[in-house]
């Protein structure tokens, strides 16, 4: 490759022999792979959003619905599966992790570029299988994304394929994890010591560990479900001596850590954005770095808080409720550090910051409701009600989703070399924020009133609240459309983005927008921490 990186074109321009689509589909450049993820992910994401939207319409009427019960059950299952396995879990690591991890640590690419591409293909394969499962076999699965046995073993719908899709997706996410860990260990620029890494890297590092330590468990669990369905090996099937609770344990051993796979990178993004717009070092760098690791650690020990009513032993109930409370602490630490970083900063209020602060607000609501669920006496009431649905939309969408937005807004100029209209973004924020809280706070009230989740028809007393929430979802989607409208417009017609529009000091702002193929003309040598504005920036 050319040593005169100065003459290097942007990564968006085809060098090499292949051009156009073929060049993209065979690329090993982490930045292009990131965009491949982004675009494919967006497609699935909007499908799922659409389904969510329709689910709200279904809840507008009490009995006579616009879809059948079977369809509705399929809808929340598919909605959940897509959102979890195709959007929030891979979302931030695969898109922004891939794009910025190497740049943030001063590397030219990840350790295993070809494996990186492979994992994208696994992702697509998984997605295709998931889509196939809707139209083949007994039709779309109707078990909810949790695939609880024995229903998932007995139902006639095409659970096997859907579950296999999730298996493949899990594989993709493991490969990404392996890649990131190796990259962080091996590819850091000279002088880039562990405590000089931007916090996003710490977040991705801890996420990667969860990915490789937890994902295999769900992989094997899903394999067992498939084997049960085809060969009836009867490990979860009570009629064959199996135990449904074993399934629930194995499933949640992965699926709780998975929720931290979703939120940790989001927290990383926030920790990047806030210093840049306050023009001061982040408050308590090490505290945040270590809290990421401890979330990863303790987060793997709380899974059974999803099973409080399943008839576990008292000992287990006690332990898991206790640990659930402990895992909330590191999140608290992060929140307080973020807020303190605003203190005595010189705040340049820009769209990314708005969305970062929105994240903090919504995540706190989500997190605090999480704590309520962690308290045994309360959980007994709200378990498997719309309260839970409210909780996880606050954390996943209000948390990870908003962080995803913030990250898009923050890095958009760098990734595409274009700038969006800030006015349009501000305008989209209002309907989004109002709609969000109407929709999901409404859901929590429903839960407190005793509205169970995954219900096709609801009893009359819940009706007015459902209507309220549905109206909220309209605002929300309106806001979403404005938001992505603005970004799409910017990609094609937006004015040129500067190399460093926000005055950030981490490495990505020291290189051109969009970055050249090999990121750096020559690998920088790092001499100080990531957020030192005093030293005038240049790392």
């Amino acid at each position, binding site marked *: 490759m050319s040593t005169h990186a100065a003459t290097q074109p942007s990564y968006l321009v085809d060098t090499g022999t292949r051009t156009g689509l073929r060049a993209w589909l065979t690329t090993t450049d982490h930045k292009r792979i990131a965009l491949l993820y982004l675009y494919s992910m967006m497609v699935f994401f909007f499908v799922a959003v659409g389904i969510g939207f329709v689910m709200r319409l279904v809840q507008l009427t009490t009995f006579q619905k616009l879809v059948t019960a079977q369809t509705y059950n399929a809808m929340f299952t598919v909605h959940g599966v897509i959102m979890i396995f195709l959007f929030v879990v891979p979302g931030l690591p695969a898109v922004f992790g891939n794009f910025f991890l190497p740049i943030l640590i001063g590397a030219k690419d990840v350790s295993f570029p070809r494996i990186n591409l492979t994992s994208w293909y696994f992702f697509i394969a998984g997605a295709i299988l998931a889509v196939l499962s809707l139209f083949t076999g007994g039709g779309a699965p109707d078990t909810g994304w949790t695939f609880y046995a024995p229903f998932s073993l007995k139902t006639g719908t095409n659970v096997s394929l859907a579950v296999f899709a999730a298996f493949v997706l899990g594989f993709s996410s493991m490969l990404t994890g392996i890649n990131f860990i190796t990259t962080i260990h091996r590819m850091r620029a000279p002088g880039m010591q562990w405590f000089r890494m931007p916090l996003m890297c710490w977040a991705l590092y801890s996420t990667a560990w969860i990915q490789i330590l937890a994902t295999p468990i769900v992989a094997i669990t899903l394999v067992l479900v498939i084997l049960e369905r085809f060969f009836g090996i009867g490990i979860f099937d009570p009629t064959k001596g199996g135990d449904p609770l074993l399934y629930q344990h194995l499933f949640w051993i992965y699926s709780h850590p998975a929720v931290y796979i979703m939120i940790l990178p989001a927290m990383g993004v926030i920790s990047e954005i806030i210093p840049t717009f306050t023009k001061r070092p982040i408050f308590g760098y090490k505290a945040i770095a270590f809290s990421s690791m401890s979330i990863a650690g303790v987060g793997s020990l709380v899974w059974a808080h999803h099973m409080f009513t399943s008839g576990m032993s008292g000992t287990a109930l006690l332990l898991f409720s206790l640990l659930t409370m402990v895992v909330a602490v590191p999140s608290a630490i992060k929140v307080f*550090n973020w807020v303190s970083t605003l203190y*005595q900063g010189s705040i340049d209020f820009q769209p990314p910051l708005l969305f970062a602060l929105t994240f903090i607000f919504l995540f706190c609501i989500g997190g605090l409701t999480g704590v309520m669920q962690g308290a045994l006496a309360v959980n007994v009431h709200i*378990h498997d009600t719309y309260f839970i649905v409210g909780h996880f939309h606050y954390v996943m969408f209000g948390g990870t989703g908003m962080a995803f937005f913030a990250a898009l807004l923050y890095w958009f100029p760098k990734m595409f070399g274009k700038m969006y209209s800030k006015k349009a973004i501000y305008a989209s924020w209002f309907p989004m924020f109002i709609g969000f809280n109407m929709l999901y706070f409404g859901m929590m009230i429903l839960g407190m009133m005793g509205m169970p989740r995954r219900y096709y028809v609801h009893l009359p007393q819940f009706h007015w609240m459902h209507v309220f929430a549905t109206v909220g979802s309209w605002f929300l989607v309106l806001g979403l459309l404005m938001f992505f409208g603005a970004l799409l417009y910017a990609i094609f017609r937006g004015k040129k983005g500067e190399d460093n529009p926000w005055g950030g000091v981490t490495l990505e702002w020291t290189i051109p927008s969009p970055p050249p193929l090999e990121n750096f003309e020559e690998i920088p040598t790092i001499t100080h921490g990531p957020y030192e504005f005093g030293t005038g920036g240049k790392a």
Partner: protein
Amino acid sequence: MDWMNQAALSAQKSDAVFFYVFGLSVVFLIFITALMIYFVIRYDKKRNPVASQIDGHVGLEIVWTVVPLVLFLSIFYYGWTNYEYMSQAPRDAMAIKVTARQWSWSFEYPNGKQTKVLFAPIGKPMKVEVRSADMVHGFYVPSFRLKIDAVPSRTNTTWFQATKLGSFDIECTVICGVDHSLMLSKVIVVPEEAFKAWYFGGENAPAPSADAPAISAHPAPANQPRGQAIMAEKGCLDCHSVDGKPMVGPTLKGLFGKRQQVLVAEAVRTVTVDEAYLRRAITSPMAEVVRGYPPAMPDTPLDPKELDEIVSYLKSLK
């Protein structure tokens, strides 16, 4: 106090913890949000052109590690102790076998009586032993803040002690198939003597009801019309009362000749209940669904004779 229809001791225990956590959460949420807004305004780059380069403060870190930890642990402890109370049934509790199956509930009492709705005396501890015949289901009584999963090949137990008369929803909370959301029933809390009257009152004692006098108003088993006998046997009376009290289904008292609002397809229609309607309602319950009720009525196979008997009986229910 009565908050969201609190109708059992367990509800009071659960809500107490909820309000504790809720209070804390509101405080912290307001505190954090207020700080954010204040800082953003106070330290805007116009007012504060140069940021002071603060790296952190160990003391503070310790404070906001320890304080939340302590609070969280207190939440845990409160939640745990109250849960212990909610889950440990007292010795003298009457044990009821609850069986969940796709998609209905059935209840069996120590003396072998079986019902589709759960009758409970007020102020007496009732132990529920939940089983499942097929999938995992969830036994949930919102007004009691009571929930326990029905897991095949296991028996999970919990208990409640109702503090209010009336009828309260039972819902299934674990997705168990297409009619998961129709897997409904009721807990009907009645005065103790009413319960006793029914419990010890042999085969076809009339269902007890929330308001004691209504019991005596019932026709005595002796001169019981054939129609009622059939309905009792076919399980109609599990969901329908004949004394004006709504259960899972609407009451059948004074139904005949009444103007009834029903949903046909999307639309609400008002019909006058005549013989034809009754027959329709019984033979194809889903065709017209009474406004305000779930389409939960099974179409029970009846031979023409039985149907006639029932219809004529329903007519007689003035």
